[in-house]
Each structure stands twice: as structure tokens, then as C-alpha cells.
């Protein structure tokens, strides 16, 4: 039982991270119908900028408590600028191009960012300082660190904030209008370019937060960290129904739980026939199953194919 609870906790932590990154994918997809594969790299940039800032600030004698907020604020600013620049330079000129063109461009941006990071930070693994207390807490027999609780709490808060932004504010209404039909939204006086640009900016700021939380949890950062994470988060977004904010959260948590329980129990249940090396297989089997039964994802609405 204790082991089971621990696996649930492991899955929830992993899932909260996937969910946080998945929000970035789903926001952009919701509004543009574009899969922004470079989002994983924004997460990586956020983690590495924070690391660099923290090192510089610590060297300048800034006290320990202020390091994380300052470093994170700087990383969010850098990532917001990066998100806006990527949208302006790489995606906006292709907005009316066939769907494949922006997709390939997104992969290109992802490579550019990865190797840009190599030029700045090198190729090695960087040790991430312990900025949050890591002494594990015992919750019903499961061990969870304060850092992991913060990961889950931040994910939930950001999720709630985004839902409020999209459904309760004037800007959110502009986002929804743009998502529904950009041409009509423009006629109604919505500055579509600005809405799209801001969507990227917000998504990138969330990416920076995700990057820092991931790195604190695993205590490493490196230039490839965003890639696999991005793929998993994208999978989570599809699982939950891409374009749907709550779906990203549900998909992320579900994927995390499937991975944790899958690799934890499959070996024992099948008598060693399938081991923990089948973890990704189960995650993708669930994805395929969901997509067969509900092509739009768990919470996705059936929408007409976009142009």
C-alpha cells in the first residue's frame, strides 16, 4: 500500500510537470492550430537562464532567499522576449502558408534554440543548486519533497489563472474570438496579431517557470532537456484534447500516472514478461486507445477542421 501511494505521488509530480509544459502547447494550438515544437526548448532556456542568473547574483553577494525570485523573473523576461521574437520572425510570415510549413519551421526553431544553448552554455550537464528545501516529507507513507509539492501547487495555480484569463477577461475573449475565426475577430476590432503575440509571450513565461521547476526537481539542466519533455507534454496535450486548457492538465496528470504505475507494476503483473522498459509503450498505447475512441482527446470538443 505504501508503495502504491508512493507511485501515485511519483505520478502526480511527473504529471504536474507534463501538465505545466502541456499548457504552453495547448494555448498556441488553441489559437493558431500550430504545434509549437520549440516550446520544449523555451523550457530549457528558462532553466539555463535562471541557472546563469543565480550564479551571477550569488557571486555579486545577493542573499540566498532573493536568488530564486530574481533568477526566475529574469528568465521569464528572457523567455517572453524569446517567445515574441520566435512568433514574429518564424511563424507570422507563414501564417497563411500550408500547415506543414509552420510545423517544419517549428522543428527548425527547436534545433536553432538547442544549438544556440550549446554555444552559450556548452554541452555538459549542469548541476542545479538546491534552491528549495529537499528534505522529504512523509504524507500517508509516501515521500514527497517540498520542491515537489511546490511543483504541483504552482501547476494548479497557473492552470487556474489561465482559465480565469481565458474565460473571464476581455483579453481572454479576444483570444477565444481569434481562435474561433481570426478574420471575423479582426472585423470586430480585435488586434489579432497582438493577441497571438501575447499568447506566445504568456506561454513562454509559463515555459520558463516549468523549466526552473523541472530543473530544481531533478537537479540537472542541459541543452537537450526540453526535447523529450516537450514530446511528452505534447502527448499529454493531445491526450487531454489539444487546444483545451483543462485537457492539458488532465492529460498531463494521466500521462504521469500511467508512466509511474506502468513502470512500477507492469513487471510484477506480467511475471517479468514486460519490464519497466515498456513505460513509453504503455503511455502511447493509452494515447492511441483514447484517440480511437475520442479522436479529439479526453476533453477536446469536436471542432471543424481548421483551414
Amino acid at each position: 500500500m505504501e508503495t502504491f501511494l508512493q507511485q501515485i505521488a511519483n505520478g502526480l509530480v511527473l504529471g504536474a510537470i507534463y501538465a505545466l509544459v502541456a499548457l504552453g502547447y495547448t494555448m498556441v494550438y488553441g489559437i493558431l492550430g500550430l504545434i509549437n515544437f520549440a516550446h520544449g526548448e523555451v523550457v530549457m532556456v528558462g532553466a539555463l537562464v535562471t541557472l546563469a542568473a543565480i550564479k551571477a547574483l550569488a557571486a555579486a553577494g545577493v542573499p540566498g532567499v532573493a536568488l530564486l525570485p530574481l533568477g526566475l523573473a529574469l528568465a521569464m523576461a528572457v523567455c517572453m522576449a524569446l517567445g515574441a521574437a520566435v512568433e514574429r520572425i518564424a511563424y507570422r510570415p507563414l501564417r497563411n502558408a500550408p500547415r506543414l510549413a509552420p510545423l517544419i519551421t517549428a522543428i527548425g526553431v527547436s534545433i536553432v534554440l538547442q544549438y544556440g544553448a550549446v554555444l552559450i552554455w556548452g554541452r555538459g550537464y549542469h548541476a542545479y543548486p538546491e534552491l528549495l528545501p529537499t528534505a522529504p516529507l512523509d504524507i500517508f507513507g509516501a515521500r514527497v519533497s517540498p520542491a515537489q509539492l511546490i511543483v504541483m501547487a504552482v501547476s494548479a495555480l497557473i492552470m487556474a489563472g489561465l482559465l480565469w484569463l481565458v474565460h473571464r477577461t476581455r483579453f481572454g475573449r479576444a483570444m477565444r474570438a481569434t481562435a474561433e475565426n481570426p478574420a471575423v475577430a479582426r472585423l470586430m476590432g480585435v488586434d489579432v496579431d497582438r493577441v497571438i503575440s501575447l499568447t506566445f509571450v504568456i506561454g513562454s513565461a509559463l515555459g520558463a517557470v516549468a523549466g526552473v521547476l523541472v530543473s530544481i526537481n531533478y537537479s540537472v539542466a542541459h541543452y537537450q532537456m526540453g526535447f523529450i519533455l516537450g514530446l511528452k507534454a505534447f502527448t499529454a496535450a493531445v491526450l487531454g484534447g489539444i487546444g483545451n486548457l483543462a485537457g492539458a492538465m488532465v492529460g498531463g496528470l494521466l500521462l504521469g500516472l500511467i508512466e509511474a504505475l506502468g513502470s512500477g507494476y507492469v513487471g510484477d503483473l506480467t511475471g517479468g514478461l514486460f519490464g519497466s522498459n515498456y513505460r513509453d509503450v504503455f503511455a502511447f498505447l493509452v494515447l492511441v486507445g483514447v484517440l480511437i475512441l475520442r479522436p479529439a482527446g479526453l476533453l477536446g470538443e469536436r471542432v471543424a477542421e481548421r483551414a
Partner: protein
Amino acid sequence: MISGFRLIPLALALAFGLASCGRQEQTGTDSADTVRIGMAAPLTGPQADIGLDIQRGTQLGVDDLNAQGLEINGRKLKFELLAEDDEANPAKATTVAQKLVDSKVAAVVGHFNSGASIPASKIYADAGIPQISPGSTSPRYTQQGYATTFRVVANDDQQGPAVAAFVARNLKARRVAVIDDSTAYGQGLASTFETAVKAAGVEVVAHEHTTDRDTDFAAILTNIKAKQPEYLFFGGIYSQGAPMAKQMKALGLDVPLLGADGIQTPKFIEVAGSAAEGTYAAVPGLPKSQMPGGKAFLDKFQARYHKQVELFAPMGYDAVFVLAEAMKRAGSTDPAKVLPELKKTRYDGVIGPVEFDDKGDLKNSPITINVVRNGKWEVQEVVVPGAAR
């Protein structure tokens, strides 16, 4: 595994592979007295630290050889190193292997990863070019029946059992768990360890798997914790080993981690921090400080690169000199003539006496067990083969 997403890494690899072609143009003149030595290792990616270390060691070897001036048949030879990046990627390894063969190298020092050395070895074998790996430890590498495969490092058939002997005899363990990273290196290491440790009467309570790109091991560690092992053996490298050590502590799995050369680097301690304490790792060969040429080599390396030796630089260095020795004996740099001599060559290198058995494996390679104490790798014990079994 068949999914559209899996195509993306492939597409990226292709794109980047293409982009990096044509970057390195041949600069050497094709004078008959210039001898090209190829080198291949992961110079980018998570294992770049290890690959660049090998490159530095090999380059130092070539430079020293040129400084000494090797003469064959009255002609003074100039050696030139062609370094290629295989990205620890089997597909890229075959591409760079072909490129080195096309560049008419006399021999190749490489590759590092067993998963890269093995596919590349067919290309070198077809071209009849000797390949000396400084770091590939999978037994399969030299068991393919090629006459061109050599290595200056102990193989996993020696490393895994050495750790097993240490665990069973010195640590008196009764229950151990095993994790491998699903690579040729990690799996080979884990399976030879498992076989040997079982033979010594120790129970293997779990064998879990991860990959060489994961950083989350909470699920498999939780599963292992429930089975109450006394030690956890990890077949893999530090980029997984270090986060694993931290997560073990976080999950309350307070048992020592065991591993091999892949985790025995300063980076492991840097990333794992205090969780690294008490980790044991086997390393092929003698401790750097106990190598016959160790001190002099470390000083020279430090003076030249202002960096510490990570691990395999001395092997790369010695590989160059073993080749030179075989060329001297053959009185030629023609691979066809050098190859038979390489089997008979005995050379006293930085790492100790280098001599190959009939498969191309290193004879009598001692194995050192290190432990992390006070944030540093310290020598725990030297296990000599034969005694390890």
C-alpha cells in the same frame, strides 16, 4: 514504439547530420609521409565530456609522437589526427566511420560507446583498418570475428564480475537490485554483473530498465525500494546515475549505488552533490595515480589543456603509441602489414602494459573499485582478473 513522434528525433538527427557535413574540410596535404589517424567519439551531446577527454588524450599522443619523430625505412613520418563526432549515435557512427575510411586513415582510435563501436567496426573491418577503442566495454565488440577490433580497456565481462566479486566478498551483500539504461553498454554491464553476482550466491531482487535520456526514476526506484535490496547496481552513465542517486535519497532508498566507469567522473559528484557519498564504481585499469605513466601524463595533460583528465584520455594516448609501435615492427604504415603486428605488440603505456589477446581484448587488465568519500572519488580496492571470478 511505432508512432509519428518517434520520427522527430530521426528527422532532427538527419537535419543536423546533413548540416554538419562539409564543415570539416581536409586540410592535410597528401604527402606520402603524412599518416592520418582517425578518432571518433561523442564530441557533442550529454557524453561530450567523455568524448572530448578522449580527443584531448589522443591529440596529445599524436603531438608527442610527432615531437619524438618516428622514422620508418629512413622516412620521417608526420602524424595527423582526424577527429569526428559520432554523437553517441549508432547511425552517425557508421557515417563518420565511412568518412574516416574514405579519408584513408591508417588506423582509428574509437569509438567510445559500444553502441557506436560495434556498427562502425564492420566498416573498418571491410576496409582492413585497425580500430582501437579507448572506452567500449561491451564484450560483443571483439566477439564479432573481425581481425580489426582492439581495445585498450577492460570489457564488461571483466568489469561486471569485478563489481560482483567486490559486492559479494567485500561488502557481504545478500540482496541487490539492478537497473540498466537499455544501451549496449548499460545492458552488457548489468547482465554480466547479474550473472556473476547470482553465481556468488547473492539474490537479485529486481532488474529494472530506464533509458539514456530519462531523468525521472521515481517509479522504478519506488518499486525497488519495496523489494528491500542492500545495494543497487546501475549499468549506465553519470547523466542518469547522478539524478538517480539524488532520487534514491529523496525516496528513502538509503542503500549505496554501485556502478562502473560510466558514472566514475567528477561530474557525477558535482550533479549528485551529497547524495553521491558512498557510491562505488569500478573502473577498468589501475587508478590514474597508480598508472606507471600516470603522474607524468596528468601533469602534461594539465599543462596543455588546463583541465583534469576525466577518465579515458590515457587510453586514447596509449592507443596512438601502440599503433606507432606496431608500425615500427611492421616497417610500414600500410594497415594490411600493421594489423598482424598489432596482435603481437607489447607496449608499456601510461595505463600499464598493453598487450592484446587473440580477440583483441586487453590482457591482464586490473580493475579499480572507487568510492565517493567527502565529495571525492577515492580508490577503495584494486581487483585483479582471475581473482575476480
